[in-house]
């Protein structure tokens, strides 16, 4: 009788444990963000491919690694939070709201991959790419972060910041209303770069040995650097003079033209209402 009781307790305990584990698993399922994961191969992985991203609303994080294909992860948790932030209808009695997948499309053709999202839907994408992938990213309302990509990087945002860390190659970036922060570890020789913003600071760290012609301009802010910039053509390149019927007009613009380490391709850093920082990296 005693052994029977003991066995019953053990069975009960095991059942309770199973129930507990199951409930934890269910709880985890509900707590863990549901993610949409898609892996897309390039048609010729031996050549550097191109990734185009065009989003209206969302954030994108792109990381370079040694992989040969591209992994897209759309984070529904973020999307759900975004949903909370916007006006949403009341949940009818007895019903619950289901989380919709992020909703995005990927198309690959001739080693070029294009990503787009559904209209009027915020999407938050984490993308892992081969390190040499060329990037052409355009986001209207949202920020972008790129890490460890060594290629041609072109980024445009309207209302969002641009953050580049440990990137190489060449960068052409523009943010209408956002800060641009870039740490460039390696530069492609003879490749021009440009970082421009209307309303944000531009903070660029370049390799200490970089050879470049700098064109720096902030209309309503200041320019800072710890590079030894040899200011060139300060009297001719940014001064124009014009004779007209009324006499002579001389305009001196606020651009600073200078070379670092003897000069090289043009790097333009321009902002209308922000500061410019050109930092010397390691």
């Amino acid at each position, binding site marked *: 009788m005693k052994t029977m009781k003991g066995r019953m307790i053990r069975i009960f305990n095991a059942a309770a444990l199973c129930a507990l584990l199951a409930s934890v698993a269910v709880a985890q399922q509900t707590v863990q963000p549901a993610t949409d994961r898609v892996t897309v191969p390039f048609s010729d992985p031996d050549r550097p491919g191109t990734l185009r991203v065009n989003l209206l609303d969302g954030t994108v994080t792109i990381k370079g690694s040694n992989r040969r294909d591209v992994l897209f992860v759309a984070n529904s948790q973020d999307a759900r939070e975004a949903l909370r932030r916007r006006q949403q209808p009341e949940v009818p009695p007895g019903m619950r709201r289901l989380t919709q997948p992020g909703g995005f499309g990927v198309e690959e053709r001739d080693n070029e991959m294009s990503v787009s999202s559904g209209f009027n839907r915020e999407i938050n994408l984490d993308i892992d790419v081969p390190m040499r992938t060329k990037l052409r990213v355009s986001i209207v309302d949202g920020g972008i972060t790129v890490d460890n990509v060594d290629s041609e990087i072109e980024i445009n945002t309207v209302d969002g910041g641009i953050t580049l860390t440990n990137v190489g190659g060449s960068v*052409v970036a*523009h943010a209408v209303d956002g800060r641009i922060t870039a740490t460039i570890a390696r530069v492609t020789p*003879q*490749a021009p770069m*440009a970082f421009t913003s*209307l309303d944000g600071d531009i903070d660029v760290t370049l390799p200490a040995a970089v050879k470049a012609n700098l064109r720096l301009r902030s209309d309503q802010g200041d320019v800072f650097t710890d590079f030894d910039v040899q200011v060139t053509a300060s009297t001719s390149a940014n001064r124009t003079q014009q004779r007209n019927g009324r006499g002579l007009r001389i305009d001196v613009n606020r651009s600073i033209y200078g070379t670092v380490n003897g000069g090289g391709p043009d790097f333009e850093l321009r902002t*209308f209402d922000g500061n410019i920082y050109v930092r010397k990296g390691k």
Partner: protein
Amino acid sequence: MEHDKLGRLLPDDIDRREADELDATWRMLGGIDAPAPDSDRMRARLDAVIDALEHAEPSRPRTWFGFRGLAGGRRFYAVQGLAAAAILLVGIALGRFVMSDRTRPADSASEIAAMRSEMRELREMVSLSLMQQQSASDRLKGVTWTGQLDRPSGEVVAALLDGLMHDPNVNVRLATIDALERFASRDDVRRAAIEAVDRQMSPLVQIALIDFLVKTNERQSAPTLRRLAQDPRVNDAVRSRAAWGLQQLG
């Protein structure tokens, strides 16, 4: 390496400027990357070009826009062809130059003049083909190099204006405004700047264009600037810059 060899090949009494030009051209040629294969837009252009070729008369003169269409459609082959033609031209020019200097030293002035002209065309061709590349960094390079061209042709101005109006990248459009400053005495350039300031979607480009119009004292732009300054839909910074521009133009 080729330009080092070239330096050694040149006779001692040659003008160093010629050697520098050759050197710069070699560097330019070395800087052209093989472009990536086409996108949807390029494929559409290719289809359009094939369609046009099927229906066009055989001896139609080539315009800049025709050139652009061809380069856009078969960009890979067009740029390869251009690069091959450029290298051939350099070879011919160099051969003629070196041989003429050795065999007929007294008669080299016209040869040098001819070579200069060929060099100029070659450098222009390199700049124009760079402006057609898919990479914004390459297009920036092409736009910047037009600043080094000695007596650029109308084709260069047309390409810069085309870039100002249609280039998809804001930074390339900004660079074309800087590059167009040397052509500010041309009516068509100033007219295009007025048209562009109205059509541009990028506030930074609009501000740069307003500065350009003020610098060139283009009074024809006053009605456009007035409209911008009063339009509530226009970006605030652009509106205040347009108001400032109006004040400057008096």
